[in-house]
Structure formats: C-alpha cells, structure tokens
C-alpha cells in the first residue's frame, strides 16, 4: 500500500469511528430516556408509580451502547495507527493528529475505568465529547499526512506525547465527573434528584472517583512534563525555557498538585475540591487550544 492509500484508509476509519460513536450516542440516549419513561405499577395496590425507574429494562441497550463504544474505540485506534503508517512516524505531528489521539485516549480512559466502576451513565457524555472532538478535528484541524520537521524526530517525542495525551484523557474524565458532581450537588440542594439522575452514583462516590483518577495520572503527567524537558534538551539545548507551552504544562502541574494537597493535607472534599479540579483541568485545555493555536512559542506544531 502506498502512503496516500494509508492516509485514505485512516480517514475512512475515522469516519467509521464517528458513525459508530453516533450509534453509541443514540443507544446511550435511548437507554437513559427509556429508563426514565418506563412506568411501573405498585405490586400491592396496582397504582401507577411514576417516579420509580427500572434500569433492568434498559440493560440490553446499555450493553449494546458499551459494545458500540468499544467498536468505536477500536476503529479510532486503527485510524490513528494508519495515520502513523501513512506519515512514516508516530502520528503526533500536528493538531489534527493530537486531537484524534486525544479522543482515543479519552474514550480509552472511560473504557478502562468502566472495567472497575459502573460508569455507564457517563457514556452519553463521553460519546458526545468524542464526537465533538473528532468532528472539529476532521473539519477544522485536518491537514494532509506529511513527515515531521527535524525537531520532532525523537523517541522522546513519542514518549512525551503519548504520556501527555493519556494524562489528558484521564484528566478530562476526572473533570467530567467533577462537573457531574457539582451539577448533582446543586440539584440535591434544591430537593430530590430528578428521575434520570437517580441512577447516577452518590456524591461521595463521584467525589472519590475524580480524586482517584487525578491521583492515578498525576505521576504520569509529571513524567510527561519531564520527558518533554528531556526532549527539549536534545532538540534545543535547554531543558526548560519558559516557552508558553512549557509554562502552561507547569501551571497544570501546579494546579493538580494543589488539588492533591488540598485533599490530602487540608481535607478538602466535595464542592470546593470539584471546583479546584475543574480549574486545573481548564488550564490543561487552555494549553491545548489557546497556546497551540495562538501561542508564539517554539511549540507551534498545530500545522494551522
């Protein structure tokens, strides 16, 4: 196969992944909606209980939704690999490639966490986020597959970027959970949870879960920053130069360190911790979106 046919194959796989994620989106939406509408009758009196919801009825569609998520993940994975083959390098040379890999990491983090926790309620959000990312990537950020400029040709790039993307995926997942926490918390403070939200875990579980995810990837993010410094030392002769991208990686690191401290040493829980988590995550997103596109540093690899 020629390089351009690999590039076509990659695009084709990414479009297929989007189609499958769309199916996953609808399956999750149907699951949520159907469970909400499912009316039940009280077994003793026979009267209609409008506020009881039976998720066993939607178990099948929920399983199908998860199967679609896995299929979408595999297609996306193949698409990223094909992109790498077409360019003859690791597929992390411009922002289009960062975005499709980021979506892959986000979905991967969700699926990995799903093995341990019942997170299917998150599926709708994950499918939406992945679809938005892929849609933006293929319409706005798309660039033809091309080789890397010499500064990007390094094993450390592969290590640095893969660690950074994986951390990003998990950070964002933690953020989605923290945001869910805040939403449910304000809902509970107004009274009972509305019907569909009853299925979501308790506030304590959400609180713990987002902390656990951050604590799990913080060392990986630290490693990603350090690998980036090693690469910068090889390419530019200094391991740290306060380039905007480096600066924001540092800010993200400080923000998450502050989050961990606030939890472990000061004992923050709940709302305050969730807001801090969201703040730290927004520094990560800012780095990715703003600094990549409008920044003026050496890291201008967006290809835009």
């Amino acid at each position, binding site marked *: 196969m020629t390089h351009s046919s690999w590039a076509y194959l990659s695009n084709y796989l990414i479009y297929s992944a989007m189609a499958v994620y769309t199916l996953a989106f609808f399956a999750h939406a149907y699951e949520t909606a159907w469970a909400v509408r499912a009316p039940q009758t009280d077994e003793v009196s026979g009267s209609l209980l409008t506020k009881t919801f039976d998720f066993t009825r939607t178990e099948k569609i929920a399983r199908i939704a998860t199967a679609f998520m896995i299929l979408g993940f595999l297609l996306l994975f193949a698409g990223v690999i094909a992109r790498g083959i077409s360019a003859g390098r690791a597929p992390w040379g411009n922002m289009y490639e960062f975005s499709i890999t980021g979506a892959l990491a986000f979905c991967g983090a969700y699926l990995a966490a799903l093995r341990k926790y019942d997170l299917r309620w998150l599926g709708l959000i994950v499918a939406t986020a992945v679809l938005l990312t892929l849609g933006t990537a293929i319409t706005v950020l798309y660039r033809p597959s091309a080789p890397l400029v010499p500064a990007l040709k390094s094993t450390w790039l592969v290590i640095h970027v893969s660690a950074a993307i994986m951390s990003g995926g998990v950070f964002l997942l933690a953020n989605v959970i923290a945001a869910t926490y805040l939403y449910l918390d304000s809902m509970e403070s107004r009274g009972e949870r509305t019907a569909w939200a009853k299925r979501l875990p308790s506030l304590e579980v959400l609180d*713990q879960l987002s902390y656990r995810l951050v604590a799990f990837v913080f060392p990986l993010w630290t490693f990603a920053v350090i690998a980036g410094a090693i690469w910068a030392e*090889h390419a530019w002769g200094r391991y740290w*130069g306060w380039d905007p991208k480096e600066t924001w990686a540092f800010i993200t690191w*400080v923000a998450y360190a502050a989050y961990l401290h606030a939890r472990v*040493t000061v004992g923050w829980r709940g709302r305050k911790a969730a807001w801090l988590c969201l703040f730290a995550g927004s520094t990560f997103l800012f780095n990715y979106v703003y600094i990549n596109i409008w920044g003026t540093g050496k890291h201008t690899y967006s290809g835009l």
Partner: protein
Amino acid sequence: MSNEKEIPELGLVSSLRFVWRQLTSMRTALSLLLILGVASIPGSLIPQRPQNPMKVTEYFKSDPTLASWMDRLSLFDVYGSPWFSAIYILLFVSLIGCVLPRTFEHFKAARALPPITPKNLEKMEFFSQWQGTGVELEAARSFLRKKRFRIREFEGALSSEKGYMRETGNLLFHLALILILIGVSFGALFGMKGEAIVNIGERFTNTPTTYDSLSYGKLFRDSSLPPFTLSIDDFRAEYDPLTNAPKDYTLWVTATNTPGSSPVKHIIKVNAPLSFGSTNVYLQANGYSPVVTVRDSKGEVVLQGPVPFLPQDANLTSAGTIKAPDATPQLGFVASFLPTASRDKIRGGVSSFPEALDPSLLLSAWTGNLGLDHGVPQSVYRIDTSKMVRIGLKSLKIGQTYSFAQGSITFDGFVPWVNLQVVRDPGKMYALFGAILAILGLLASLFTRRRRIWIRVGDDGNVQVAGLAKNAAPGLDVEMSLFIEELKKAGQ
C-alpha cells in the same frame, strides 16, 4: 489576658524565629506554589525578550509609554525578574524548612511501632465482633506478619500498621523537588551558552572570540570552556518537495577534544547533539554563504570567499551584505541570495524552494565610505549607505561577473553554513536525577495505602476487630473481610 504569654518578645531572635515558622508552614508553602503558578502566566501571554525580542520591539513601537511601564515591572522578562525569583527562592526556602525536619523525624520513627490499640474499638470503622475460641490472637499475628504489617502487642490486644512507604515516598518526592531546584540554579550559575555561524569546510575553535554571541552564568569562567576544535566537513538538508518543509538535517564533523589529541568523526543531528562532558554542541539553524570575488578598478582582488547571509523565510531567501573596505573607493553590496530563484509580484525576487536548485545573487552595488573607521561596531548584515552612492542593480548566476567603473564582483558559487549552539549546563544531571526520584517518590506515595488493623480478645473470649484507612485509602473493606474470614476459619 490569658493569651498574653503567647505573644513573642520583640527581640531579634524571636522575631526571626517567628518569621521562619511562618515561612515554613505548609500553608505558606502551598500559597507560594500557587503564586508561582499564577506568576508564570503573564510571561506566556506577553512576548518575552529572551525568546522573542522582535515582538518586544513591536510593543515599544506601538505604545512606548505602556511598554516602558511594563518593562519597569519586568513584564518582558518575567522569568528573569526579581519578583519571580523572589517567589521561587521563598518557595525553595520554605520547602527546605518544611521537609528537612520532617525527614529527620521520619528517619527516627522508621522503626517505630504503631500506637497501642484504642479502648473503644466499637467506634471505629470496619468494627466487627464475635465469640472466639482463643486462637484468634495467634491467627491474627501470623496473618498480619505474612502481610508485613508492623505489629505491637499490649495486654491481649494487637495493633498493626502498614504503609509507611507513603510518608517515605512523599518525603522523597519533596526532597527531589529541592534537588531539581538545586540543579536548575547550578546550571544558571555555572553554565554558558553561545552561538556561532560556521561555513561548511571551515573550523570552529571553542574560544570566546569564535562566537557570534555568548553569555555566561554568573560564576562561569573562560577557563571552563572545553578546548575542543570542530572541522565542519559536510552538511546535508533534505526537504519535502510537496510542502517545502525540512525533513532531515545531517552535519558531519571531525572533533579534536583537546589540542593534540587524535581527531574523531561524528554526526550531529537536530535531536542528537555532540557532547564534551557537560558541554553540548547543537545543530540549530542553517543557511547559505554566497562565495564572491570582488576586484577594484585595477583588477586587484580586494575580497574573496564565502559571506554568510541570513535566511528571511522558510524557502531560505537570504539577505546579507558584502563589504570591501580595502578597495579605493570602498565598495559595498546589499544583496539577496536565492537558492531557487523565482519572482513574486509583491516581494520581487524570492526563493521558491530551500534547496539550491537554481541559485542567483541579486546585488545593489554602492561606492563611497562604508563608515567602518569610527570604531562604532557595525552589523555585518547592514550597510550604512548614507555616505555612499549607488552604482546599480544586477542579478547574477554562478560564474557571472558584474563589472562597473569602480571594479567588479564575481559570483563564484555558494557553501551552506550551520549555526552551532554550544551549551554548558553542569546542573542538568542533578535536575534529571531529581526528576526521576520525584516520580519514584510520587508513585510510592500515591499508590501506598496506609492503614491500621486492630484486634482485641477479651478474657471472655470475645473477639473485636476494627480497621482504619488513612487518607480514605480504598480497599480496606476487602482486606478486613479477608482478615475476619481467616480468623474465623482458624477458630473452628
């Protein structure tokens, strides 16, 4: 008033002690950490002089008053500013003052046993009790020992703890941060950085005068420059014919480590510098030097050789000047070198590909006084034409000559040049070592679960167990049920 005693005396020593205690409190350290994060933001949004001096000049042009105010606040050099340094030095001091005492304490407590079993186990988490058969204490002891808990026994009760690794890892992490900061400051004090443009075929000798620009750390001495010499043998740049983007650069050199030692051949690439101890030589940029011969009106050669030009765009359209001060009258040429000549409606002569496929040299010739004798250093890339008159314009291909009344210039060919960046950073190994330790410490601290398990067997054979997960560590529920199951099995 009762708390009057707590107000410290205003003596110097006690005031200092008070300040030290404030500075090394964890709240201060955390605030400083956050402040450092916030303080690094402006430098990422405002152009910085060390990285982007041109943009800073633009600021000064567009709004001089605002720019000079910003300059006064060091906003164009945030990371070298006094206030930024103040923050991280304070953080450094705070970190040391906070972490070192804790490290000593931790060392002392390294073999310490857990506190004795609390009186009321009923109030603890994971509490459970049943009527035992008298073997439970023994079974608990062997269970906990197998799992490498630290055990303390006291009056028919057993108290055990595991997960000291958490504090060890945590201290290692914080000590490693100190090591990174030491490495960074060491590099800044004893390091150096210089750049030099060298034509292919020429030699580079590592002495201060060879450099085009050179900056030293505060404690760096000339004598610390390693005495190596590099012959720049060959250079190859490959470009993508579709996008014009560079694909690969390779530089072949022959290095002599010290005068008299035997020369060794090396290859330098963008991501693979050449090292001499803690000094690295990087391939940083490349361009072209047109080779010219300038003759005066009598036909005598007044200048011959390669003249480095600076690239102006990605296709290496290069600009430079050729000065012949030895000619009478003096001659000067403002010139462009186009590796692959083409024309652009707006910009005129430009290069359309970075490789030299169809090179041409565009010249504007001047005669008169170059103004070099005033002792004021002049850029080699500029000509002060205020005391000169223009002779004419000409475009040359290789081998062609432009003759005029005052002399002539011949375009003989070109050689590539490379920009070598030489960096010495004696602190980077400490920083790297610190970084590795930091990650190991983090892993140990974040993935160690610290927990206590207690058991008390009453005189009546009543078995009580309970557990405590520190920092809400997960998984103790599973461990406790395993523990209880084991004890009950032993009791049967």
